[in-house]
């Protein structure tokens, strides 16, 4: 084997610095960022995103794991985070947006303090999951995909959490709860209310 040739293959390419503007798609966000006075909040998001990105390689296949990690940290995917990710992976910004809007898991708005996910799997639906959803909507006065104005609750549906035998299921703060019918909806809300009152008293 030609040693010179094979060596050439293994020469390590220098890592491209993140902000040199040489990336194929990078120029737009640089223009945008320059034109924008960054708020403190935005700067913090940017910094937190960068810290997560440092743990990943710059390949496109990492996009979804990166988005999952960033959302895990920030609770949602702010605009600045998506721009940062696009730049890091050197892909058009719209590609990040395409992925974020395609998958159910990702959200563009901050979540509420408590997450309510009503399971709408077949078993849950047939056992009245839609009635449970109605009850949540009625009590929280929001539609699915929305957050209450006080940011206490966000309501959404989930395709199936695989607890079909406990139907109808609602996942409350990541814990699946079985047999959630309208009266249990009121019970769960009451327990949150009591807990909040107790915390209020303790802090007083």
């Amino acid at each position, binding site marked *: 084997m030609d040693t010179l040739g094979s060596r050439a293959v293994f020469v390590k390419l220098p890592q491209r610095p993140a902000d040199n503007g040489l990336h194929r*798609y990078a120029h737009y966000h640089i223009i945008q960022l320059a034109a924008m006075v960054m708020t403190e909040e935005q700067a913090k998001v940017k910094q937190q995103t960068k810290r997560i990105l440092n743990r990943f390689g710059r390949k496109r296949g990492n996009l979804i794991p990166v988005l999952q990690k960033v959302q895990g940290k920030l609770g949602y995917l702010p605009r600045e985070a998506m721009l940062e990710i696009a730049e890091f992976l050197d892909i058009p910004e*719209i590609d990040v947006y395409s992925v974020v809007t395609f998958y159910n898991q990702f959200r563009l708005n901050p979540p509420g303090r408590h997450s309510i996910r009503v399971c709408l799997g077949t078993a849950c639906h047939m056992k009245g999951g839609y009635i449970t959803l109605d009850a949540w909507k009625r009590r929280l006065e929001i539609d699915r995909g929305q957050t209450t104005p006080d940011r206490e609750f966000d309501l959404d549906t989930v395709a199936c959490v695989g607890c079909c035998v406990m139907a109808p299921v609602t996942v409350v703060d990541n814990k699946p709860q079985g047999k959630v019918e309208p009266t249990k909806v009121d019970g769960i809300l009451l327990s949150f209310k009591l807990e909040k009152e107790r915390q209020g008293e303790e802090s007083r």
Partner: protein
Amino acid sequence: MKTVSLTIDGEKVTARQGEKVLWAALDNGIYIPNLCALRDASEIPAACRLCFVEVEGKEQPVTACTETVEPGMVVNTRGPSALRLARTAFELLMSSHPVDCAHCPANGSCELQKIAHHLGTKLKTRRFRKLLRELPVDSSSPVFIYDPNKCVLCGRCIWICRERLGIGVLGFAHRGFERVVTTFADEPIAESGCRDCGECVVVCPTGALTFKEQ
């Protein structure tokens, strides 16, 4: 270059080996309705589902954009089951299209009109419910107007912006019925980094992207 001879609608034609039936037909002056097909694209979208043809020896109609030519192949672009599928697909597209040709700048040059004529169907469908999306029109660009309601999601504009021009401002976002051609965070086109070259308007088969009148 190796060539293959085949029969399309009773006509003997030759095509480059490995060519898709759609291009073989179009090159020989035989029209097959199509919207999403792009000759130079590396991947075949096969998304619009309009180019159904019947191939002798195959039970079901196939899409001409994905079917590779074979020596001695017999293709019928006007077979009843192929036309049935193409017509249904077209009617479905029209069911979510605001058929308002009189006020549309693309009137006369619109490929939807051409396809309707070819398939012998009306632009306004009776069979299906009207399902309009009522999305806002974007006229922020100094050069063109983008009306997503008239878009058939063929993806030609995305392809030209990205692969040909290396800009990559447009892309698909959301999914299902909500799928739409848009910019990052649904921003106005003028703020998205668009260079106003207007190439996307040139390739748009419908009135979704049209030049502003001078």
